[in-house]
């Protein structure tokens, strides 16, 4: 993976004597972290890379925090980061049952776009996309944002009309997208077969500033910046109960003991139902497995992201040369992080029709993540029936792109009780019939 890092290197912590010292002192006090820069690389090169610090501190939990965030995926970490950066709330812990970014954040196909239909969606996804533009600089961590352009193929007349409508909506929302012809599709992506036998390409919705980013780096970058503000990121700390007094949250029980807090943010994606159950409320969410796979690395052959939603397949090429492929979600609740076999076949079959040249590619790996699906395919960023407890979930198959914007809005919601970015995404919108219906546009889109 190291060849993927631009001028900001992967912090080489594994072998530094520095790290061993820190591991022996888990109560390591807050020391501002050294910045990554070209000078740091030169300095470290001159001393055989012995001076890189741990990227974030490993600390034992304190007795109490102002805010506890459950879940160190991108959304939880970004929420913590903007709580500190935008609202000055720094007595914060992020609790993670496994390892940082080991949930969907480290399992997704990293497509970033903001070409949604409804205004509240466009607002939060475009805020997010625009934050991605400068995220590496803001975090001093190379998240490898690559605005290479995303195209969503229209392969049925229904999709043609749908994407033309979205292009008009995006024009009104100030999101730069364009409906393009099959010829333009072919120019942008020469390996596509636009006259495919079953589903010829009839056009596409093109977002030139959409693209991809390095998923782990997004989690690591936010974690490092949180740690730098003195926040505690505590891994292998599973929340097992939500404690409350009256109807107000008072803290959590964890595998590392009881920890108190004034406010609690639940940001656990596929496990939202489990945490909501602990907190005593129900959600309009079901969890299912969604899969992805990557091929062996090949020479550069495609420098845009292509999504083919009718046939359930989407593909981009990583900087390492692997074709990164995603497909459809399981139709029934499960927590297997694996997914059903026939989805892979469907996806691969569809992609081979659209990209005949990949027919003899070997696949290297396949994996699954547990995605939290709502009925209107829009997320929930909301207060909950338990006072002081907030939830950020329901990003389903498409929340990687939303990490910075969601963290921004969620932090404001938790700090001030409301945020223009999250106001429409409340839990009670289902009861009140205020759906943010992206199900047509985002049914299988990522």
């Amino acid at each position, binding site marked *: 993976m190291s060849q993927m890092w631009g001028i900001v290197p992967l912090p080489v912590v594994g072998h530094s004597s520095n790290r061993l010292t820190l591991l022996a002192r888990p109560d390591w006090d807050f020391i501002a972290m050294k910045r990554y820069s070209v000078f740091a690389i030169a300095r470290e090169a001159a001393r055989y890379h012995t001076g890189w610090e741990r990227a974030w501190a490993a600390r034992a939990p304190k007795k109490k925090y102002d805010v506890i965030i459950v879940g160190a995926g991108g959304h939880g970490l970004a929420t913590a980061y903007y709580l500190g950066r935008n609202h000055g709330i720094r007595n914060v812990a992020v609790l993670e049952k496994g390892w940082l970014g080991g949930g969907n954040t480290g399992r997704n196909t990293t497509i970033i776009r903001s070409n949604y239909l409804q205004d509240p969606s466009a607002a939060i996804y475009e805020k997010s996309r625009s934050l991605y533009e400068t995220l590496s600089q803001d975090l001093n961590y190379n998240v490898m944002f690559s605005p290479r352009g995303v195209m969503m193929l229209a392969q049925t007349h229904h999709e043609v009309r749908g994407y033309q409508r979205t292009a008009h909506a995006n024009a009104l929302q100030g999101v730069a997208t364009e409906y393009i012809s099959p010829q333009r599709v072919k120019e942008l992506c020469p390996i596509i077969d636009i006259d495919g036998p079953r589903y010829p390409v009839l056009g596409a919705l093109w977002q030139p500033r959409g693209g991809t980013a390095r998923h782990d780096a997004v989690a690591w970058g936010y974690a490092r910046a949180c740690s730098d503000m003195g926040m505690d990121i505590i891994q292998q700390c599973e929340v097992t109960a939500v404690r409350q007094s009256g109807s107000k949250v008072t803290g959590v029980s964890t595998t590392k003991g009881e920890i108190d807090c004034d406010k609690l943010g639940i940001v656990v994606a596929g*496990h*939202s*139902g*489990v945490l909501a*159950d602990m907190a005593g409320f*129900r*959600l*309009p*969410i*079901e*969890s299912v497995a969604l899969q992805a796979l990557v091929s062996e690395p090949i020479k550069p052959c495609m420098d845009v992201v292509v999504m083919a939603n009718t046939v359930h397949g989407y593909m981009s090429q990583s900087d390492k040369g692997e074709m990164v492929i995603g497909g459809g979600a399981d*139709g*029934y*609740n*499960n*927590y*297997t992080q694996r997914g*059903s*076999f*026939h989805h892979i076949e469907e996806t691969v079959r569809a992609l081979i029709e659209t990209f005949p040249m990949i027919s003899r590619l070997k696949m290297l790996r396949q994996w699954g993540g547990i995605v939290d699906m709502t*009925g209107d395919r829009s997320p929930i960023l909301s207060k909950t029936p338990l006072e002081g407890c907030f939830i950020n979930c329901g990003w389903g198959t498409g929340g990687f792109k939303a990490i910075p914007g969601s963290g921004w809005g969620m932090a404001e919601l938790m700090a001030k009780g409301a945020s223009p970015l999250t106001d429409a995404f409340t839990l009670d919108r*289902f*009861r009140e019939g205020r759906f943010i219906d992206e199900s047509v546009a985002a049914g299988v889109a990522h």
Partner: protein
Amino acid sequence: MLILTCPYCGVAADETELTPGGEAHLTRETVGADDAAFEGYLFKRENPKGVHFERWRHAYGCGKWFHAARCTVTLEVFGTYPAQTTEPPKDIRDKITAKRPGWSWRDFG
């Protein structure tokens, strides 16, 4: 790969032969229900990490709807049973108790 035995025709059907139908034993709220009950029926869903009850349809077989009791973590199937019931039958619940002591799902367990 998930295989469920259709309680009507007895076929051990692969999931590709079946259509998932979501949470089982919902009470269909109607005129006169309050907002909370109606919201619960339409939107709120059980999403357990463990024992779950669902509706399935033997779509590419005999076409009938039936119920399945399943673990969402291991995909172990505890049993399938006909659609003509508003709650999981006792023999299925006993089987689950033998394998997952202390389980609960809504008001059952």
